[in-house]
């Protein structure tokens, strides 16, 4: 629900204003470039998740139950899609906060992603050893 609201907010802000550069005042360019690099780091994370999903589908041997490989691959790719969308939303939120001189908005996504990947890796290890 929060994710859908974030996407809606991102689209609304993107298309209903002259752009993020119309908000607040122009900050020190180092802040904007740091925000840009953070966006790119998240995009690389998303691409790595997509690549990881494809690698699981193509290179992992058959597991027991047989559909486990497909489930893992789909989960990784979908997670990559979420990470890509979230990276753009986060960039807009951070850029607005920087331009308005506000605190950066908190985010639970890194923690959630770390937890999901940690449990996924544990689950996969168990499936490979006992499956």
């Amino acid at each position, binding site marked *: 629900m929060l994710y859908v609201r974030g996407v809606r907010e991102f689209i609304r802000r993107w298309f209903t204003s002259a752009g993020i550069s119309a908000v607040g005042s122009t900050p020190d360019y180092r802040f904007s470039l740091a925000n840009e690099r953070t966006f790119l780091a998240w995009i690389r994370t*998303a*691409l790595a998740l997509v690549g990881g999903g494809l690698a699981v589908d*193509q290179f992992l041997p058959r597991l027991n139950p047989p559909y486990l490989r497909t489930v893992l691959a789909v989960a990784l790719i979908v997670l990559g*899609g979420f990470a*890509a969308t979230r990276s753009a939303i986060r960039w*807009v939120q951070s850029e607005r906060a920087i331009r308005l001189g506000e605190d950066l908005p908190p985010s639970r996504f890194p923690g959630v992603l770390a937890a999901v990947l940690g449990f996924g890796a544990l689950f996969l290890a168990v499936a490979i050893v006992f499956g």
Partner: protein
Amino acid sequence: MSNQLNPERTDLAWRRTVLTATVAALLGVRGAVVHWPGPVAALAVAALGAAVGLIALVGRRRGDVLAAGPVRILTHRVWITTAATLALAAIGLASVLRP
């Protein structure tokens, strides 16, 4: 000193992103060629190439802007890069969920 290196670090971040996209796309190409019939595979390969090409083009243009200075905000390139990444994810998902 480190202030002057900010644009260069950002340009290098774009290059790393293009390399990561290339690796993901190559895995997608392999999946498409192995699992799909000729015309569909060709279409998928073209779409994957277009997505990576788009990210590379955006990165190249951004690098030029950063090198020329003064530094301008990223704006629409965020949207294009995200859309290209989502396209890669969508094609990858289709190749995994092949009939």
